[in-house]
């Protein structure tokens, strides 16, 4: 099913990799040097196959940030923001409380940290959690070349403050999150759907929106399809 390549190439992975899990052949690669990468630089993959340590397949995991100057600074400045810091595969993740989002983001943008480039805004839907949504912001500083991820959790009906006043790039990104997840941003100048039609019902990227689900009424009305398959 999930075989990805059928070609009769001699190099295609037959059984050997099944074994590799137990015997720990050269697969693992550098778990150690991944964690070491300060600013998530993608370590050079092409390593000479000679210098490989076979055993101990270490699964990458979330590690708490220690001695991180940004984390320390944020904790000092925003004691109420509940800032925590972790890293995964060398990429730092800062989690903050929703209430202090604007203050922390404004600080990250304006202070000496100078995260002037908002790379991306997106959302994760953890259906069933008390705070269902997790907003994810990627920030980059052109001055220092640092990339960070800021996360904050929001409950289902909670408004998330818009960061459009801090980065103009957030405008469409937040509109897309609104379109796909139904999260309302307070203070957004023009919160409309962006990819889906304005009168569409439902938010497709929510986990309780089935992939086959469509807004049947909309389809009937606009596409004039009489019989829509259920």
């Amino acid at each position: 099913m999930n075989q990805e390549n059928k070609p009769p190439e001699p190099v295609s992975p037959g059984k050997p990799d099944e074994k590799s899990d137990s015997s720990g052949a050269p697969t693992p690669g550098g778990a150690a040097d991944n964690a070491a990468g300060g600013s998530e630089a993608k370590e050079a993959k092409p390593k000479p196959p000679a210098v490989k340590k076979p055993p101990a397949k270490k699964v990458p995991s979330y590690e708490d940030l220690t001695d991180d100057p940004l984390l320390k600074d944020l904790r000092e400045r925003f004691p109420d923001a509940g800032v925590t810091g972790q890293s995964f595969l060398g990429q730092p993740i800062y989690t903050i409380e929703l209430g202090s989002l604007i203050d922390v983001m404004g600080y990250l943008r304006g202070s000496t940290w100078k995260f002037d480039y908002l790379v991306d805004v997106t959302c994760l839907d953890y259906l069933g959690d008390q705070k269902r949504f997790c907003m994810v912001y990627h920030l980059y500083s052109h001055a220092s070349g640092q990339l960070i991820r800021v996360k904050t959790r929001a409950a289902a009906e909670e408004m998330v403050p818009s960061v459009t006043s801090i980065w103009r790039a957030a405008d469409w990104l937040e509109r897309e999150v609104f379109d796909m997840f139904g999260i309302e941003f307070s203070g957004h100048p023009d919160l409309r759907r962006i990819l889906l039609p304005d009168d569409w019902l439902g938010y497709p990227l929510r986990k309780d929106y089935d992939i086959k689900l469509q807004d049947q009424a909309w389809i009937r009305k606009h596409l004039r399809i009489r019989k829509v398959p259920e």
Partner: protein
Amino acid sequence: MDEPTILDAQELEINMGPQHPATHGVLRVKLKLDGERVLDADCVIGYLHRGVEKISENRTYTKCLPYYDRTDYLAAVSNALGYVLGVEKLMEIEVPERAVAIRIMMTEFNRIASHLVWLGTHAMDLGALTVFLYCFREREEILKLFEALFGARLTTHAFRIGGLWMDLPPGFEEAARKFIDDFPAKVDEYEQLLTNNRIWIDRTKGIGIISAEEAIEFGLTGPPLRGSGIPYDLRRARPYGGYEQYEFDIPVGENGDTYDRYLIRMEEMRQSCRIIRQVLDRLPGGPIRGKVPRVIKPPVGEYYSAIEGPRGELGYYIVSEGSAIPFRVRIRPPTFINLQALKRLVKGHLVADVIAIIGTLDVVLGEIDR
């Protein structure tokens, strides 16, 4: 309100697109005009929305891959690279040197092919039809190379998690070398047609100027950002997939106008040739696929894998919950974010310049709408 007469100077609202030959796909721009001047513009997008991100949450990691070819259909190879690098990072799969080198070569070929489509259509929009024919002639050669290696010309399904589908077919290296030997002269030829062409300069110089600060503010990446003088190229800023081994220059502009962005893309094509030449000169041997488990099941975690696509920063934010199906794959599309700046860029320009500015942003609606 009085009945307007024909002599009244009125604001006029018109639709450019979605079916308009110069909007490069189904982009609709609602223009507010005062005569020929643009007062405001509002983009309406989403006509090509297929829910690729939703589909990704219902497919295994390997089955997601072909869908990404169909987001930015002019840069299918780059799209594949960003995603496989991310999954390989999560899975800690090591890719053999040969596969790494071939991936870089094909991605650079893709960059050239994508820039050629941009140049051809951009020039055609501004009235230079000859360039279009020349560009597509050269692009055809690249598509033939794609077909030889990937078996497809456009939606290539180029790479596999852990390496490549197959090794270079016989004669591929010679054909690739022939192309990069000939191609720089062809770029000179395009430049002869345009760079000092009076009409071209009039249509592009001083059009759609954006300052460096504003470009960053809008989150621009790729040539639109470098045109304003910021040398931000992910191949250099955060090297991925082996780019740190190759030498190349990052062209930047000064004025941040359409003309500078044109010059940058022309130079990028030459630089891509340079990278391909280095790859071919020291193409390592060996296997083309690393050890990949049968079932791709990354541990619980997340990774943001970004590459420098032909249009800017293309990112894949992959979140795994430990199953064979991604919890979420967020595609950070470069042109979606670049297009946001259109509103700002067209203000005060003439309607004809809107065409030039849409062209210079190099939008691909398949990627914007996903």
